[in-house]
């Protein structure tokens, strides 16, 4: 089958509002999930970072979620949560937890002992040390975890379209279901390219976000 570029451009010009809407949905569902995962993940990380037993259990559990194939996970959530946004967000949050929790724990632990000691020695309570010293210093690593999670979830969200999840995956699956018709390729290609562009843009955005949110004293 040859690629009909003209047809593709016509396709885009006719459906540009649909495309934008799906792009927006895709970004929205990913952002929402990342936000929830950030709060949950950092919170859990702050609870278990210095408790070896809980730490291994939590990281192992989060790792399991990441290993399970996305279609399977979505399918398992279906009987309980139905179709659409809710199982999608839940699945995306579960996939994001491992990179975020693990990076939080690693980041908190990597704060040099001398700094921990001088902070405690100055009279900060352990919680204050966690909040005002460790967390800011661990932030670059945590943000990297969120960045990795973003890449993963953008891909998974595409599959979630199968269970009526929002986003560009809908175009991809439309391409599948209209196999044989002349627009099948356009649908699938648009959906796929859209996801690629979104992923690259989001990754670039993270470089900027990291820079802005990291203290100047910490930047390499």
């Amino acid at each position, binding site marked *: 089958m040859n690629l009909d570029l003209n047809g593709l451009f016509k396709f885009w010009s006719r459906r540009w509002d649909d495309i934008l809407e799906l792009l927006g949905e895709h970004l929205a569902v990913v952002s929402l999930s990342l936000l929830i995962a950030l709060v949950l993940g950092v919170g859990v990380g702050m609870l278990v970072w210095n408790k070896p037993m809980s730490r291994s259990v939590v990281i192992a559990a989060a790792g399991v979620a990441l*290993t399970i194939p996305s279609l399977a996970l979505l399918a398992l959530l279906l009987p309980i949560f139905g179709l659409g946004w809710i199982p999608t967000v839940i699945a995306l949050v579960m996939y994001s937890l491992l990179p975020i929790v693990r990076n939080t724990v690693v980041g908190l632990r990597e704060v040099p002992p001398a700094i921990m000691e001088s902070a405690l020695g100055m009279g900060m309570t352990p919680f204050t040390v966690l909040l005002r010293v460790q967390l800011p210093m661990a932030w670059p690593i945590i943000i990297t975890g969120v960045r990795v999670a973003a890449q993963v979830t953008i*891909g998974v969200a595409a599959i979630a379209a199968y269970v009526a999840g929002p986003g560009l995956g809908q175009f991809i699956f439309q391409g599948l279901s209209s196999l044989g018709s002349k627009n099948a390729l356009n649908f699938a290609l648009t959906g796929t390219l859209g996801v690629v562009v979104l992923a690259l843009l989001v990754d670039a955005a993270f470089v900027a976000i990291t820079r802005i949110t990291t203290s100047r004293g910490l930047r390499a």
Partner: protein
Amino acid sequence: MTKPLTDPARSSATSATPTVLPVATRRSEIWSIKRFVTPAVVLVVLVVLYLWLASLSLDSIESRTLNADYIIARVREHLGLSVVASALVAALAIPTGVLLSRTPSRAIKAVVLGAANVGQATPAVGVIILLAIIWQTGYLTALVALVIYSFLPVLRNTMIGLQQVDESVRESAFGMGMTRNQVLLRIELPLAVPVILAGLRTSLVFCVGVATIATFINAGGLGDMIVNGLKLQRYPVLVTGAVLVACIALLIDWIAATAEDVLRPRGT
């Protein structure tokens, strides 16, 4: 009142550590109890699944799917796809990675690594479906899609693994008179093994996951059960398919992780 410095009681009290401690053997470290937690958990889950299924009364649709023959056939298809794809990727991407890492040209390396990043950003489901539209549906297409998709990450890990070998180690190897090939085979590759294996492990688990989606293009596998269960609203079928594929993914990840630890060169 003088205390002699060579007081034996004193000197033994000063040493915080006793004589040399016995070093735990590698074997016992790798095969500890913790190692077997994952397979144990998977086993428990499978047993629970089986018991649950046995307790249900299945209708005709369900019994057509939830029997040993059907399930084994699907598992075979699934594993076949995943393992073959990974083996192909290993055979193709690792040598390519080795060759590419030898080129002095930085531009080529940058392009490849950049392409790998773009590849990473591409959704697997999109690649599979695109390929099916352009070419044809079926097992072969799924295999090709898997290989295409996993190629770049393994390639990248191979290149990075070789690149991160300590420059001073390389230098002393050359300094001792090893040829380029000897340095590659005896020093660089062994030291890059952990990173390469990590890449293979991710690729393997990933293939298991994407093979699930292969159902959309009639490539078979356990994805069939999930999709059928969904379409026909038969939750036992759906759950069984999902749980089975999850267990396979976890087991394969466990096997790969163990292999990583076993094959890692001593001392790294």
